[in-house]
């Protein structure tokens, strides 16, 4: 692991913040579209998630890709719904609120942890600068 640069922990923590922010964005989008039975393509909204990977040189983290969740759309009996099929069932987004809330909580905590790293490291750098006084 070639971590020799002075500001490495800053870059690493910032990459963590960006990754968790990206996660929070996608989770937010899932939640916002939890009831979108009819998207631009006429189909229900399909849940998305972010896959992370280590950054360049095994340092930090990056967003590798955004993947669609391929679990089946739940079918709900709603005969009055314009999107209902001939049997009166509507396909709804495969977003489950409790799951999304849990992921949002995790991503928030991870975001906080990276913030703590940044804050503490900047503090340490200040103390190091005291050597020059």
């Amino acid at each position, binding site marked *: 692991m070639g971590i020799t640069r002075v500001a490495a922990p800053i870059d690493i923590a910032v990459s963590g913040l960006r990754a968790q922010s990206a996660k929070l964005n996608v989770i937010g989008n899932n939640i916002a579209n939890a009831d979108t039975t009819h998207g631009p393509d006429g189909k229900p909204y399909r849940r998305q998630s972010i896959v992370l990977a280590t950054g360049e040189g095994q340092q930090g983290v990056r967003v590798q890709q955004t993947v669609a969740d391929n679990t089946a759309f739940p079918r709900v009996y709603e005969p009055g719904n314009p999107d209902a099929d001939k049997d009166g069932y509507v396909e709804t987004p495969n977003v489950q609120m409790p799951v999304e809330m849990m992921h949002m909580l995790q991503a928030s905590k991870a975001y906080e942890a990276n913030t703590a790293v940044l804050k503490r490291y900047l503090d*340490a750098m200040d103390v190091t600068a005291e*050597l020059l006084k």
Partner: protein
Amino acid sequence: MSKDLSMVEALDAGLKATNLRQSVIANNIANMDTPGFRRQDVQFKEVLAKALETGKTDPGDLEPKVVTPGDTEVNDQGNDVDMDMEVGEMLKTNAQYKMFVRMLAKEYQRMSEAIQTE
């Protein structure tokens, strides 16, 4: 045959190790959600103890090592980073680092006091 370190040499060694550890722990925290990622740590106590024993204590020989302990449980994503533990380690390392810096500053202050005669 063993050789002891001077105060400044010892502090330099401690600083090198804790400095590297700060980066390594920061990386663990950044990758707490990365599939397949195993936490890493810095090995130095053993390196130093061995060096003192064998008498090879050139500052150049005292290199802290990045290791992958692999003794922590992985979750279903193959990741073994425990956020709370890692944040705890980060705070510890941070405190140690600052302590060593302040000790080093005190040493330099001592030396400059010795030079003054007023």
